[in-house]
């Protein structure tokens, strides 16, 4: 019932109907037909959701985090709902890089969509190894270096909480990999800008953020933490305002593209992230509730771009070109804030 501006008649609509809309983005050398990806760990290796909708419509697919050796992950419970949020303590359960290559990659590589593999390690050396191994795969679009997993004993988030270690890991991956490298940042830091700058200087081709926010829950009947690892990662709508702020900050701190995620559920959320500086967005938790959320977001972005007020500004920046380009509104809120009369 939220009155949808898009459905209201608009005098400029006729003109605008004749405009083409271009949702393409290029990030870290990866060409995506639209900026909507799925977030690591929320999409498995693509198999499950391929049964539910046409995943080829996605801008890109990001796999569950892969480590050098297989991991069993954490004991149950692994999930706990919170107000508008989800705590997870999956703990990087994954088949390891070799089984990934053997069992998942043959299917993934046939997708007509860029596939990005999320990688994790306990040590810099492990990151380097896995990056080297994955670089041998033909057709892999990029590596997303997870330096922000809150659910493991070693490595993970620790790498992402210190600019020095973040630099080191990304540098190592960059050296080992022949693929574009995306650094996935942790929100659990005092200054996301310092971390973003560190991974940029280490050669990252893009940053993606945010990973989950450290949280916890207590079982008041058993009077102990819900999770065996005590802390877990918070995702979903609850974290959206935090993620958006960090995307804004990262956009101001680095020149490489920013991939935004954290609580994105609707096209409106996606637009907020894009205006705040995200060149692409990823949908995670929202896909559990509505698997088709990414597709609805793609459709919504298209409509948003043709909507009157947007057109004006987009056309302004696009000059004579009648194509309305999504990439023209990336970070627009920064420009409008600086230039605008805010009262």
């Amino acid at each position: 019932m939220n009155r949808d501006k898009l459905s209201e008649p608009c005098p400029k609509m006729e003109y605008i109907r004749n405009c083409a809309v271009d949702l393409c983005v290029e990030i870290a050398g990866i060409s995506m037909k639209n900026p909507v990806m799925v977030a690591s760990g929320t999409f498995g290796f693509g198999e499950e959701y391929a049964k539910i909708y046409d995943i080829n419509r996605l801008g890109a697919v990001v796999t569950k985090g892969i480590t050098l050796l297989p991991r069993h992950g954490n004991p149950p419970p692994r999930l706990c709902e919170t107000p508008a949020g989800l705590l997870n303590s999956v703990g990087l359960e994954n088949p390891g890089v070799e089984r990934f290559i053997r069992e998942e990659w043959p299917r993934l590589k046939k997708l007509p969509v860029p596939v990005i593999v999320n990688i994790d390690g306990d040590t810099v050396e492990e990151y380097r190894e896995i990056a080297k191994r994955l670089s041998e795969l033909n057709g892999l679009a990029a590596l997303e270096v997870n330096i922000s997993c809150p659910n493991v004993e070693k490595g993970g988030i620790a790498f992402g909480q210190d600019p020095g270690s973040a630099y080191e890991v990304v540098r190592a991956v960059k050296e080992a990999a022949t693929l574009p490298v995306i650094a996935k940042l942790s929100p659990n830091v005092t200054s996301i800008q310092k971390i973003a700058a560190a991974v940029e200087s280490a050669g990252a081709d893009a940053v993606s953020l945010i990973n989950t926010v450290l949280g916890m829950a207590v079982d008041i009947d058993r009077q102990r933490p819900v999770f065996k690892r005590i802390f877990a990662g918070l995702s979903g709508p609850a974290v959206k305002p935090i993620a958006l702020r960090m995307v804004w900050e990262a956009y101001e701190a680095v020149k490489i593209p920013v991939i935004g995620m954290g609580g994105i559920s609707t096209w409106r959320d996606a637009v907020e992230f894009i205006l705040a500086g995200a060149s692409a967005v990823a949908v995670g938790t929202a896909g559990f509730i509505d698997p088709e959320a990414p597709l609805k977001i793609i459709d919504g972005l298209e409509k948003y771009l043709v909507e009157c007020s947007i057109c004006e500004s987009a056309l302004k920046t696009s000059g004579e070109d009648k194509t309305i380009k999504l990439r023209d509104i990336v970070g627009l809120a920064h420009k409008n804030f600086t230039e605008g009369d805010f009262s």
Partner: protein
Amino acid sequence: MERKGDILAGLLFSTKVIQNVLIAYDIYHMKICCPEVAEKAAPGQFLHIRCSDGPTPLLRRPISIAGANEKDGTVEMVYRVLGEGTRLISQKKAGEILDVMGPLGRGFPVPLDAVDPVLIGGGVGVAPLLYLAQKIAGPLSRSGRSGAAFIGFSTAGEVFGVDFLKSCGFTVFLTTDDGTAGQKGVPTEAFENCIKGHEVQKQFDIVYACGPKPFLAKVKDAAVRGKIPAYLSLEERMACGVGACLGCAVKSAGEGYKKVCRDGPVFEAGEIQL
């Protein structure tokens, strides 16, 4: 019944509620119209239900299929109002829309040969057994074999399913914790006593059970002792419901974890640790 998503789909449905009534204390019986699910569903499979349009409660709720009718395209569920999610589901009125994903998971293997099956259910754990009973009823009567159902509830006000199980040809052993209906006790004990021959001596070829974990652990022990193959339906908190998030872990008998939503909810007793 409107079909959501594109042709690949077949798992996401916007269904119409046909009835949603209180049948016992805090327990509801819901019937929806969803021919696709009615056609494909196997007993033990579940639907993943969206309970609100907004972000609270955030996740879908898994509810077992308690019955399905291919002819009129209806699917039934029996559920207990436990928290906010099930409370919202219980408020749905006939004619309203219910957003479901399914049928999901691996269900009970329905025996092809003539066997004497036993169903063991605790509380709303009885729900999936009703659908199983519906499916077994035909073969059972045709083969002339006999089935038994041991079901337990905390109190008389919560009892459901007895007549239905009887109508499917099962001999029903009812227990309640407080003895207000059937025998006082728990169905696992009643079952053990039975196979041990304490009261009614009876042998079974296959065990199907659903209930809380400690309950299933007892069923498993009894089945192992009685050397009867047992299929147990497990519960675990779920996010995706399709195997993508790795959230609904249960310790596997070997290394690592199985996923209740994808590898289960029904497991052969030997597959998992309880």
